[in-house]
Each structure stands twice: as C-alpha cells, then as structure tokens.
C-alpha cells in the first residue's frame, strides 16, 4: 500500500514535473500565509508579516529544486531533459542525423531480416500451444534412430487409457489437382483422430479433424495457410472446397494457422489428413508404415513413462521392428523433445541446408552493422570535436563530467532508437519484398523470409540497437569530455585539434572489416562460378532441356518412342535452333543416374576396386549440342544402330584412371553380369550431371539406338539455340502438342533456369555477399574520406607553412595520399587475418576454391587501396590548394 503510494508519488513527480512543481508552490504559499497570520496575531502589520514569513521561508525555488532532485524522480527527470536536449541537438544537424539514422536503420534492418529467418527456421518452436511439452515417443532415449513404431505397436500403445498419444505418419501424394491445376509432389501429415486433440495445432478457419472423421474414413483434410492462400485466395474461402487426389475428392474442412508447417511432413507440407482417408487415397496401409507417436509431458513424465513402458513390454517387445536390446529389457521407452518439429534426414531438411548459409549471412550483416556503427561513431566523434567548445563551457559552468557523458550517451541512444525503429520498418518492408522476389532456387524460403513482427524480433532489434549505441556512443562521449577543456576554450573557431590515434584506429578497423566482407564475396563468387561452369557441357544460357513422360497419359511407351525421331526432326527445323540431341538424361533434371559395374578385360578386379560408372544412352550429336568436348576418337553416328557392333564413349577421368598409358580407343569394356562387350570409340571431357559439388562421375555413354528397350516411357532432348531460349520454347511446345497431345511435359526449360534452381542458394548468397562487400567498401570510403578531410582542414596552417617553406603542391598531395594509404595499410594488416579466419569459418560453403586461396584476398586488398586513393583524392586536392599566405594568417 504505502510502497505503491511511494511509487506513485515518485512517478508522478517524474512524469508530470510541472504539476508537481505547482503543488509544491501552493504548499509553500500556504505555509507562508499561515506564518504571516501568526505574526499578525503577535502584533506585526500584515505587510511586515508577509515579508518576514517570506524571508524566513527562504529561497522557495531552491527548495523546489531540492525536492525535485531526489531519488529516481530526479534521475528520470534529468533523463527527460537529456532526451529533449539530445532531440534538439539531432534536429539541429539534419544531414548528420539522416546519414546516421539511414545507415543504422539499414544495418539494423538487415540484421533483423536475417535473424528473423534464422529464428523461424532454426530456433522457432512449432506454432502450437505449449509446444515445449511435445515429445516424440522413442525406443532409445538418446537418439531419434528408432523414434517410430509399427502400426500394430502404435495401436497397442495408444490403447493404454492412462496416456494420451497421437499417431502420425509422413505421407506423400505425387500429384493433386486443385481448381483444375496440377500440383506435383505434395507432402502430408497423416494423423489419427486424436492428433488435433493432443497436439492441437491452431486453425485459421474451419474445424479440426475429429475422432469421428477418422472412424468414418470420409476423405477430409486440413490444409496449410499458405496452400489455402495460394490456391483459394483466403483461408475462409477455402473451407468446403475440394481437392482431387488421384480419383478421390477430398473435402477441405479447415485451414491451419499461418506458420504451421506440419510436424512430420517437412518441406512441401500442404495438408493434414486422417489415416483412414489416406487409405482411400491409395497410400500405404496404416499398419505397414512407420508411425510417429506424439505425446505431451506436463510434469507427469514418470507416470507416462512407466505406463508406456509396461504396455510396450507387454505387447510388442518382440515385434520385428523393436531393438534386440529392447527385447532383452535393456532399453526402455524414451522421449525426444520435438518442440521444434521432427527432424528429418539431413539431406532433404531445409533447416540443415540453409543453416550454414544463414549463419554466414548473419556474420556478414553483423560485420556490416559494426562498420555502420563505427561510421556513426566517427561522425559523432567529429561532432564532439566540433562541439568541444560548447561542452567545455558546460563543464566549466559546473556540469559534472558524468552528466555530460550521460547527455552524449542519451544522444547516442536516441540515435540508435530512431535507427532501430527505422531498421524494423526496413526489415518488415524489405523482407516482404524479398520473399516475393526470391530467386527460383530458394523459393522454399518464401514462408520464412517474410518476418512476422513479433516479440522476439522486437527484442532482438532493441538489443542490437542498444549494443550499437554502446559501440558508437561511449568512445566519443568519453573522448569529448576528457581533460583539456582549457585548450578547447582557448582555441579559436577555425582551429581544431588534430585527429587522434583513435579516429585513425576506427578507420583502419573499418578497412579491415571491409576487407573481410570483400574477400568473402570474392570466395563466394568464385564458388558460384565454379559450380555454374561445372555442369556437363557449356553455355547453359542457350540450351533447352525437354523431358516428356508417357506415364498416365493416353500415349503408350512405344508410340512415344516411335515419335522420337520425328520430334527431333521437328525441333531441329524450328527457327533459332542450331542442334538437337536425344539423351536418356540431360544434366540437372534427373534425380539419379543409371549406374553399372564395369569389368574391364585385362584389369585385375576385386570387390574393393569395383568400378561403378554412370552409364546412359545418348543420340548422335549429343556431345556437340551440350558442348562436351570430344578429346579422342569419334562421336556416335548413324551407323551405330541396333545390330551393329556395340560402342561406347567414355569420360576423360575414366580413361585416365584405367588406361593411363594406353589409348582407350579400341579397347573393350563389359558390364558385370553381361556377356556383351562394348568397344570404346571415343573419349570426352568430364561432365557433371546432378550433384555439382561432387566430382564428375566416371561416365560411359552408349549409343541410344543400340538400347531402345531402356527408354520406355520417357523421351529427353537437349536443344541448342542460336537465340534466346525463351523465343524457342513456345514453338517447341506447339510441336509437342501437335504430335503428342496431352503428353506430360515434365521439363521444357532453358538449362539456365534449371541451373539457377540447382545453385539458387549459392547465387543468392554470392549476390548478397557482393552487396555487403560494396556497402562495406562505401562505408569505409566515407569513413576514410571523413578522417582525411578533417585532418587536412585541421592542418591547414601546417600545410601552409610547409608550402611557404618550399614544399610543392605535388609533395603535399603525396603526403596526404601517403597518410591515407598508410591507414588502408594498417586496415589491411588487421583485415587479412580476419579474411582468412572468415574464409575458414565458411569452408563448408566453398567449392572449387580453398579458404586460403590468396587470390580473393589479394584482389580485395587491391580494391581497398584503390578505394583509399579515391577517398583521399578530394582531401589531398584541397590540401594542395592551400594558399600559404591565407593559411598562415588564418590562425
């Protein structure tokens, strides 16, 4: 009670100081009037009494001050003053404020965006109520290895009335139809009736899947928010609509909350369906698929544990899926925290794929912000120097040093606060724009890129802003109030102190950090170039990949194959097409390569030296069309047909490995388990097909016409164009539609599109790193320019003297330039170890270049020296223009 009163009192006098002052005045006046009355009572005249009372009371203003300056009220109050003062100071120099706020805002905003992505991808919990309670039931407490059960085991465990366990499986439907449009590859969570009761994901519209839905087996589903938005416009409009899965119509009964992306499905999650409905959809029967069991632990883990243990031991410890140790009673039921979702295999896990890149980006934006901070610090420092006289006057009028430091810190904090606010606005707007314009390869991230403003993001931004304020505020504040106030008072308007080591240190640091970012960008660009050029063939910009699929269409395999020569002819006749080749695969569009084991006559074979090669069939002209160089021998031609001698072309790496000393052309090779020999007729350059980071596979190319039985339901063409591929694609589509109406066109894309899908992550990272590098260089250049300009202006007199004593303009310019380059040099000394350290840290992201490759670093050093020269050009010209007479007289 009294504590509350006390607090109320404190805050009232702090928040409404004017009102509190008025009350004090009134109270003092009352006091004086009573004292005066007392005197009148004792015989004094009224006037006399009033004056006496007033005199006796003393200095009311001072008293008021004293009351005000007490405890927290005083502190808050003077901070208010500082804020008001700081605000005025910032408004007085709008250009400075604009530059500082913009650079801070961009820096903080970039950090918020990347942090937002990291947060929603790596840190965020599944958006359900009390996600921290979610546990995956497993056999082995320590590993997710056996975190699934057979259908029978799951049923037995769920039958225990003492525990609440929901069952769920990963589902996949190759194709669904929505509004007549076909969507390929849809991931599902297949759940039992208790899932929505136990896990309870929130719904944006409609209703959840109930036990009744699960029992009746009616095909219903709850789709994801993004799915609803993409295909039906809004969540509300989605409920009641249907989706066609195979032959079944599935009714949408609900839409999950935005951000809910399934528990098990992972990448490409579209909807949750009851398992009984899944059976109708032709999925695997419930008791065959591994089932995840999810439960919630609410401080009753021991009870749940023993209940499940007992059930499991009774029903299923001898099941075929269970661990032998389980059967011996050595292993018991365990729980895995799945508050962040069920981890999938590393390979298809978005999280694992992007972790390295995101951490690299976070590092990049953090360094960038650090540079921005040092720049603002530099500006503040220059301002503090310019304000030295004002501060000196205030110090000598009795302001304590602490008070002035606080004043400057409040100014810095104010700046950071405005910068942070601008930053979060940049972040929200920028990430929304970014998520709409993601390059093809990283569309998966669409959902996570657009940051949802929330407590975490705000807290992060606030923390970053405060850190910024400390970084760029403390040094200038201490510096501005240090020691020599007499000197600054004595100095005339024009004379300013020389820059100190501190300013130069800051600029050198900026140069070092810029070097780090520029050389990282160099490494990532090199990586991108190596990756892009490592696919089989050359010039993907003018190559079109076409893949046709007869499966599930009116066309039989033989009909398709019969039309292949005609298709080839028609494609070749299209305007803008320079060559066409058939092939079993073209780079980047086939998920896996056919492989075979080679037996090479005359070579010792053993199980360890098994030669596994990629082997696929290509038509005549394939190497020429793709741009794969023929190194020796000949290409396939029209004489290599069914019935003629079997022939093969091998890749250079295979040739070098097995025929290093001999000429491979004319040699025989044979696949294990086959009696047919193939004669090697040519050697071509190595070509990658699917995995760009792995070395090119050993490859055996075979003549397409000699192996017709291998082709079946697919036809693949590579089309080389002499014009932009986009101009040819419609004509090619028309040809296909005419010859094979309703055939499934799996691919009809410029190869460069496929390439950007494959290396989209790397490209995005490289582009961003270049942007970071450019920004860093600009910021460092601005910092360098500032310090040099300041130095020249403060040394005008000295330069004048030098020139009067005979120094030439060239000499003066060289002197200034030399100093700038010396600064860059120090920065480079700082930056080179940083750059190598950074490169080491992002080793996993690099390809085709080692972290210790001196070239990117050397190039960055050169860039920074050039930038240093440019930044120092204007100041040095100004130095050379100094008129000795004017300069000497000026002081």
């Amino acid at each position, binding site marked *: 009670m009294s504590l509350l009163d006390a607090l109320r009192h404190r805050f009232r006098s702090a928040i409404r100081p004017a009102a509190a002052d008025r009350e004090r005045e009134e*109270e003092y006046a009352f006091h004086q009037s009573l004292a005066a009355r007392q005197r009148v009572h004792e015989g004094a005249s009224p006037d006399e009494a009033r004056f006496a009372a007033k005199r006796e009371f003393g200095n009311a203003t001072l008293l008021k001050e004293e009351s005000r300056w*007490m*405890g927290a009220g005083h502190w808050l109050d003077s901070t208010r003053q500082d804020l008001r003062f700081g605000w005025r100071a910032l408004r007085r120099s709008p250009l400075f404020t604009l530059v500082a706020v913009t650079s801070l805002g961009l820096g903080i905003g970039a950090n918020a965006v990347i942090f937002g992505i990291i947060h929603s991808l790596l840190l965020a919990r599944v958006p359900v109520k009390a996600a921290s309670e979610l546990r995956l039931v497993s056999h082995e407490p320590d590993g997710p290895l056996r975190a699934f059960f057979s259908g029978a085991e799951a049923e037995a465990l769920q039958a225990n009335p003492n525990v609440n366990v929901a069952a769920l499986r990963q589902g996949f439907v190759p194709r669904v139809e929505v509004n007549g449009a076909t969507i390929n590859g849809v991931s599902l969570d297949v759940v039992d009736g208790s899932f929505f009761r136990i896990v309870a994901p929130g719904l944006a519209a409609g209703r959840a899947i109930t036990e009744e839905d699960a029992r009746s087996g009616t095909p219903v589903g709850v789709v994801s928010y993004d799915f609803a938005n993409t295909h039906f416009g809004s969540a509300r409009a989605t409920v009641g609509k249907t989706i066609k899965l195979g032959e079944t119509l599935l009714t949408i009964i609900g839409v999950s909350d935005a951000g809910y992306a399934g528990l098990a499905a992972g990448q490409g999650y579209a909807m949750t369906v009851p398992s009984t409905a899944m059976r109708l959809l032709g999925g695997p029967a419930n008791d065959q698929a591994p089932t995840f069991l999810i439960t919630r632990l609410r401080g009753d883990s021991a009870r749940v544990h023993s209940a499940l243990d007992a059930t499991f031991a009774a029903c299923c410890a001898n099941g075929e899926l269970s661990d032998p140790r389980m059967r011996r009673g050595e292993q018991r039921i365990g729980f895995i925290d799945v508050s962040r979702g069920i981890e999938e295999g590393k390979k298809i896990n978005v999280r694992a794929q992007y972790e390295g890149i995101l951490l690299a980006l976070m590092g990049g934006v953090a360094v960038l912000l650090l540079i921005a901070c040092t720049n603002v610090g530099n500006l503040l420092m220059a301002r503090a120097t310019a304000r030295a006289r004002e501060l000196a006057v205030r110090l000598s009028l009795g302001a304590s040093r602490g008070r002035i430091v606080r004043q400057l810190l409040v100014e810095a904090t104010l700046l950071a606060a405005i910068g942070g606010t601008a930053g979060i606005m940049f972040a929200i707007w920028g990430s929304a724009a970014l998520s709409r314009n993601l390059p093809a390869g990283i569309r998966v991230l669409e959902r996570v890129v657009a940051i949802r403003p929330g407590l975490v993001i705000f807290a992060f931004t606030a923390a970053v802003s405060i850190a910024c304020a400390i970084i760029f505020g403390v040094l200038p504040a201490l510096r501005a109030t240090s020691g020599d106030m007499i000197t600054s008072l004595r100095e005339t308007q024009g004379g300013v102190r020389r820059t100190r080591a501190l300013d130069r240190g800051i600029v050198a640091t900026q140069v070092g950090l810029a070097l780090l970012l520029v050389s990282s960008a160099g490494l990532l660009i090199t990586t991108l170039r190596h990756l892009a050029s490592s696919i089989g063939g050359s010039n993907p910009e003018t190559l079109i990949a076409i893949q046709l699929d007869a499966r599930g269409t009116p066309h039989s395999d033989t009909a398709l194959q019969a039309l292949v020569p005609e298709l080839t002819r028609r494609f070749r006749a299209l305007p803008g097409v320079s060559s066409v080749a058939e092939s079993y695969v073209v780079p980047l569009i086939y998920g896996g390569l056919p492989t075979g084991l080679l037996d090479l006559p005359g070579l010792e074979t053993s199980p360890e030296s098994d030669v596994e090669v990629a082997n696929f069939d290509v038509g005549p002209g394939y190497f020429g069309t793709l741009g794969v160089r023929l190194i020796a021998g000949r290409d396939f031609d029209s004489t290599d047909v069914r019935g003629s001698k079997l022939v093969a072309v091998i890749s250079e790496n295979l040739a070098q490995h097995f025929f290093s000393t001999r000429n491979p052309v004319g040699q025989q090779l044979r696949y294990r388990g086959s009696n047919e020999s193939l004669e090697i007729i040519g050697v071509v350059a190595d070509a990658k097909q699917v995995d760009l980071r792995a070395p090119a596979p050993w490859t055996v190319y075979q003549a397409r016409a000699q192996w017709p039985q291998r082709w079946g339901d697919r036809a693949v063409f590579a089309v080389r164009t002499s014009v932009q591929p986009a101009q040819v694609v419609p004509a090619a589509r028309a040809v296909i539609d005419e010859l094979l109406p309703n055939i499934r066109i799996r691919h009809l894309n410029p190869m460069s599109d496929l390439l950007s899908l494959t290396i989209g992550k790397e490209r995005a990272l490289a582009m961003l790193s270049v942007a970071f590098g450019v920004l860093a260089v600009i910021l460092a250049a601005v910092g360098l320019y500032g310090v040099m300009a300041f130095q020249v202006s403060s040394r005008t007199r000295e330069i004048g003297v030098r020139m009067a004593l005979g120094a030439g303009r060239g000499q003066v310019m060289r002197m200034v330039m030399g100093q700038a380059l010396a600064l860059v040099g120090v920065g480079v000394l700082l930056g080179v170890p940083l750059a190598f350290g950074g490169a080491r840290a992002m080793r996993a992201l690099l390809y085709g270049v080692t972290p210790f490759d001196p070239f990117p670093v050397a190039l960055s050093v050169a860039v920074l020296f050039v930038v240093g020269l440019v930044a120092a050009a204007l100041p040095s010209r100004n130095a050379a223009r100094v008129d000795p007479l004017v300069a000497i007289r000026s002081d």
Partner: protein
Amino acid sequence: MTRKTRDIVPGTLDILVLRTLSLGRMHGYGIAQHIERASDDAIKVEKGSLYPALERLLRGGLVTAKWEQSPTGRRARYYTITAAGRRTLGQEVSAFQEMVAAISRVLMTT
C-alpha cells in the same frame, strides 16, 4: 546557561516529523509549529529542511499526502503517517535513545 534556539541534529528531523504525524494528520506548517512548541522553541525547523524531509518520507512510503480543505478555507496538503512509517518510527526512536544513552555515557565518563 542561556537557552538558545538550536539547529536540529542532522538526520533527526525525519524522526521528529514522523513522531509529530503519529499524533495525527497535519500540514507542513502545523508540523513545524508542533515541533517548535513541543521543544519549547529549542528546536527551530528550517523550512528548507522540512519540505525536502517530507518529500523524502513520501518517496520512502513512510507518509502519504492528500490535498484537503484547511479550517481557513484554503487548500492545504495534509500528511498522514503510514504503517511502515510507524514501524520505522519505533525502530528509530529506540535506536536514537540508545545513541543518546551512549553519548551521555561518553560525556559523563571522566
């Protein structure tokens, strides 16, 4: 020895104010009057000390203040001691008495 009006021993004004308020609610002037009268004018309450002391007590939650109509018809700020104030008063009074006793022992010892 002539009687002199004395300045108050630093730090004791708070106790005197609390003690005064423990008799009933009062405004600032009343408090000063009471202290002066009760000490037979031996203690003069400086207004420059009284109001900061009251402010201090308010912030410490030992007293509360309320604007009310005074008998003269003007608005006056009346102070009331809180439960915490009474507790503090008790502690301070005994501490003060101990201190006085200790000081006298020192002064009386020859």
